[in-house]
């Protein structure tokens, strides 16, 4: 048998299509009679809707319908909460605002027309009158006594308070040689997929069924939501995911527009499409990152961490479409790879008059890693200990794994770090970044008038969450293998990595595997692509299904070849007799016989019909990826401009299926982290107006902002799944803000500036330097 595909940098199967312009995105799809939807969004952060008059919009030539909440009748109800929590007072979005709007961008009315331009013309003609209410914008003021209340029936704006604690923090603080207290302010950012959200729906009156083409990360969740909202069985909703141009989290959520397109198609029995534009992506798709942390870290003189206390406020925006995943994940990521016996961690999730929060790549972890890693650096400086030594002293050692930090993860499981070597990861990353030569480089840089700094960050990431993902494997008469998996890609190369797993199990060429992803008709159940889970959960499902089909192929071949199954093996698309090699039958021939070859003829005795099966993988626990980032930066003290001179990541995602693709995942994640650290910031004014709704004002990293990233994979297989894989999709984003901020803080230490925030724009760094009078 040839070398296994797993572990090889197989070129991406999808790239020929995507790079030659043959990709097919929702915006490319056209159906006869298709109408286009446009959404009127609230211009007010907090206001009563006094009047809404749609008559002029309805009278516009080419307009099919203009609806406000009242026109939807009983369909205008709040969406089901996907992830409930006992301490959460949950308010989820509804299709159209009713009586009151609670954030700028909230859908208020909807128009369907023959073209998008006409639909937008009609939006201009909607006469709407608001009575403004005081907006709740600053998350720290949300909980004060006289703050306006956003949701009727609540006593205040606290959505939930989560606490995890262990040991005796007060006693440990008293015993400590030093207690460091800091406050961190982390700003809002977004995930900027270059293709925005997009959805097209065709309702078939004859079969009373919906066909949905959606640019989504979670087709089965989309299907489930529509089935619930239209009170039909899931069988009546088929969701197909065509090519998707980026996701990063915001496309894992079911939004008002997803319902509204389906509703308009249902009402008029016409295909209806909506494609989000960039402004809508800022105002209508979820945000993240914004948090305030008040932290205390207690240490012994030798650097041993004794206790950790954190009280954070997480601004959830106006609704919680995905519950309180982000604060929950931040909270359970704070201890990271360090042994800390005493902790009290409290997350206060609050409502505000801003765009709702959802998971962005990293999902609350970049913030946790930022806070913890900044605290470790501040402690090292205070105690006069080397920053590497303090980390090595407190890191969970490899022989201590599996290790339980005493935290419960968001899925309710007791967190158990399954495998890894955290100190080695840190040492490798430092070595990749040429840490040993850094001090010489620093001196040279200083002579040239720059401030030079090095920063590092270590992290542990719970990845590969449940509940399940499925794979269907079917061998066809021509010997090709049809592989279907529920969780769709947004650019990650799933067609290739999943085919590699399948090809290895079946002993066939990766070219012989035809992959279909994200079509609910091919698999009844599925979860989606998020939480670094497709390789872990989907990949193991592919392994199970491929193995089951291989077994069936051998059983069938045993009958055909009249040879005991134990003597048979598979290779190169054939089943053959081991050692002898005298008898063999191809997968195609087996498939033809298992399909029943002669119409009207008998089915052969002792053979199971069909050479196909579906299997689901249900992980019992997340698996814990981990890694270390090191950044070296240069700052121009006169302008505050930061240049990243060197960047290194040593990363352990267990068994690497395709190193080229994992490199790409890391690099893309680091790019996002550079955005969080240096560039990306959503500005709200005091009235709750978002000031950054285009790429003029909200900047994301471009090629010139992302340095060469030295990447190394430390492969320590997961103990929790047969493939031994751990998640890789978010690792780059998780460590980068902390490593870069630590490097900036290190560079600025001669001028007495500390870093307690992100992003760090040139203006902000200049201001910090100036405030120190340096």
């Amino acid at each position, binding site marked *: 048998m040839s070398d296994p595909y797993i572990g090889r940098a197989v070129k991406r199967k999808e790239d020929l299509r995507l790079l030659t312009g043959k990709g097919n995105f929702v915006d490319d799809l056209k159906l006869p009679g298709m109408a286009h939807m446009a959404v009127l969004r609230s211009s007010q952060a907090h206001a009563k809707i006094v009047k809404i008059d749609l008559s002029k919009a309805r009278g516009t030539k080419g307009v099919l319908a203009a609806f406000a909440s009242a026109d939807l009748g009983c369909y205008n109800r709040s969406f089901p909460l996907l992830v409930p929590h006992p301490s959460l007072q949950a308010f989820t979005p509804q299709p159209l605002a009713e009586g009151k709007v609670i954030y700028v961008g909230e859908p208020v009315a909807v128009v369907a027309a023959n073209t998008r*331009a006409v639909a*937008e*013309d009609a939006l*201009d003609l909607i006469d709407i009158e608001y009575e403004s209410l005081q907006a709740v914008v600053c998350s720290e003021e949300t909980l004060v006594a006289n703050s306006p209340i956003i949701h009727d029936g609540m006593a205040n704006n606290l959505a939930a308070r989560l606490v995890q604690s262990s040991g005796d923090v007060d006693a440990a603080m008293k015993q400590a040689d030093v207690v460091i207290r800091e406050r961190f302010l982390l700003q809002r950012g977004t995930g900027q997929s270059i293709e925005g959200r997009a959805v097209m729906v065709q309702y078939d009156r004859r079969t009373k069924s919906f066909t949905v083409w959606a640019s989504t990360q979670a087709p089965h969740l989309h299907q489930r939501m529509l089935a619930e909202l239209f009170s039909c069985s899931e069988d009546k909703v088929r969701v197909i995911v065509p090519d998707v141009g980026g996701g990063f989290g915001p496309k894992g959520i079911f939004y008002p527009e997803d319902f509204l397109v389906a509703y308009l198609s249902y009402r008029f029995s016409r295909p209806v499409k909506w494609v989000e534009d960039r402004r809508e992506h800022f105002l209508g798709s979820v945000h993240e990152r914004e948090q305030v942390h008040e932290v205390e870290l207690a240490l012994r003189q030798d650097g041993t961490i004794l206790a950790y206390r954190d009280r954070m406020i997480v601004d959830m925006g106006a609704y919680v479409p995905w519950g309180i995943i982000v604060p929950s994940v931040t909270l359970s990521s704070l201890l990271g790879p360090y042994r800390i016996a005493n902790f009290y961690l409290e997350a206060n999730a609050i409502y505000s008059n801003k765009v709702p929060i959802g998971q962005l790549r990293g999902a609350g972890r970049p913030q946790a890693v930022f806070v913890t890693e900044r605290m470790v650096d501040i402690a090292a400086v205070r105690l006069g200990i080397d920053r590497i030594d303090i980390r090595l002293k407190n890191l969970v050692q490899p022989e201590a794994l599996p290790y339980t930090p005493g935290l419960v993860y968001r899925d309710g499981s007791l967190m158990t770090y399954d495998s890894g070597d955290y100190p080695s990861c840190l040492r490798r990353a430092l070595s990749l970044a040429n840490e040993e030569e850094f001090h010489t480089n620093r001196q040279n840089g200083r002579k040239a008038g720059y401030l030079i700094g090095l920063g590092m960050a270590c992290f542990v990431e719970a990845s590969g969450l449940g509940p399940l993902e499925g794979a269907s494997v079917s061998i066809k008469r021509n010997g090709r293998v049809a592989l279907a998996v529920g969780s769709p890609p947004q650019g990650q190369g799933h067609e290739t990595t999943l085919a590699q797993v399948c090809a290895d199990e079946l002993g066939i060429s990766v070219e012989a595997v035809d992959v279909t992803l994200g079509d609910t008709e091919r698999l009844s159940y599925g979860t989606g692509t998020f939480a670094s889970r497709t390789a872990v959960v989907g990949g193991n499902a592919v392994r199970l299904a491929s193995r089951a089909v291989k077994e069936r192929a051998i059983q069938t071949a045993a009958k055909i070849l009249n040879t005991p199954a134990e003597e048979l093996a598979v290779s190169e698309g054939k089943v053959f007799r081991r050692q002898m090699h005298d008898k063999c039958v191809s997968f195609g021939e087996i498939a033809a016989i298992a399909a029943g070859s002669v119409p009207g003829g008998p089915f052969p005795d002792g053979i199971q019909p069909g050479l196909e099966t579906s299997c689901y993988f249900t992980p019992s626990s997340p698996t814990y990826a981990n890694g270390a980032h090191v950044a070296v930066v240069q700052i121009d003290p006169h302008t505050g401009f930061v240049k990243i001179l060197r960047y290194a990541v040593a990363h352990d995602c267990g068994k690497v299926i395709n190193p080229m693709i994992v490199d790409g995942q890391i690099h893309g994640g680091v790019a996002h982290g550079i955005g969080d650290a240096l560039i990306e910031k959503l500005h709200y004014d005091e009235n709750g107006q978002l000031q950054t709704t*285009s790429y003029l*004002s909200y*900047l994301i990293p471009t090629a010139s902002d992302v340095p060469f990233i030295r990447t190394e994979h430390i492969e320590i297989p997961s103990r929790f799944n047969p493939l031994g894989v751990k998640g890789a999709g978010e690792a780059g984003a998780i460590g980068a803000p902390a490593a870069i901020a630590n490097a900036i803080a290190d560079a600025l230490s001669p001028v007495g500036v500390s870093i307690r925030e992100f992003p760090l*724009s*040139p203006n902000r760094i200049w201001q910090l330097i100036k405030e120190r009078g340096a």
Partner: protein
Amino acid sequence: MKSAAFDYRDPHTLAEALAILSQYGEDAKVLAGGQSLVPMMNFRLARPAVIVDINRIPELAYILNTEEEICIGAMTRQAEVETDDRLKRNYPLLPDAIRYIAHPAIRNRGTIGGSLAHADPAAELAAVALCGEAEIKIRSQEQQRWVSSREFFHGPYTTSLEPVEILEEIKFPRLSAAAETVFLELSRREGDFAMAAVAAVLELDGDGNCHQVRIALCGAGAVPYRAVGTEKILIGERLTSKVLTEAVSAVTEGLEPYNDVHASSEYREHLARVLTHRALEQLIERVENRNHSENNAS
């Protein structure tokens, strides 16, 4: 994000275009490279009733080099100017500045005239025009007139162009062979709008004193401007570090404060000083290097 409906005209001669403009007046808008107008229309910030597309008027695209001046037709693409070999020798300030305009794809479409007429406060070409004391040729159906670049820019996005007029050409007087030029800019990311940018020209006399200096800034304030105060301090002086410091501190005189999410007005003023200082230092170094090598050669 779709534009409101508009009528579209694509004249093939300048005369034809001017006739359409005189017919529609304020309802019409001239489309050159479309790199600012089209996004503004899609945001519905601009809603012209008629678009007059002048991309099919060949007579508006040219670069002329003469002994005395350099003339550039309004519809010359920025990339043409950036890559023109004669300009690299005769007027390097133009290609040096154009490299800072956005990204290559945008410069392939964007035009010299379009950028000047749009008058974005951060537009590099405005600073170059002011620094080069360029003259701008404007035409309507009735008349042709020349406006100095100093009088052309009125404020952010406003110029002395009337709705019935088309910017036809910009003309730069050639610089003396002894003059050195520089363009420096700081933006959030490569290709972004300038937070501050400076265009400068310097010539020293035989004694090493400042014979000629012109400094123009964009991005830092709401309108591009000449740093006249700084120039006055420098002229006739030996450019010691003390003189430079004094001159640079005057560079924000005449700057109209401007701030946005990327940079406060205070920071922009600071960057204007830092860049002017660096620009002057680079110019002095270059002049000295040249004098040095010329002396060695003779």
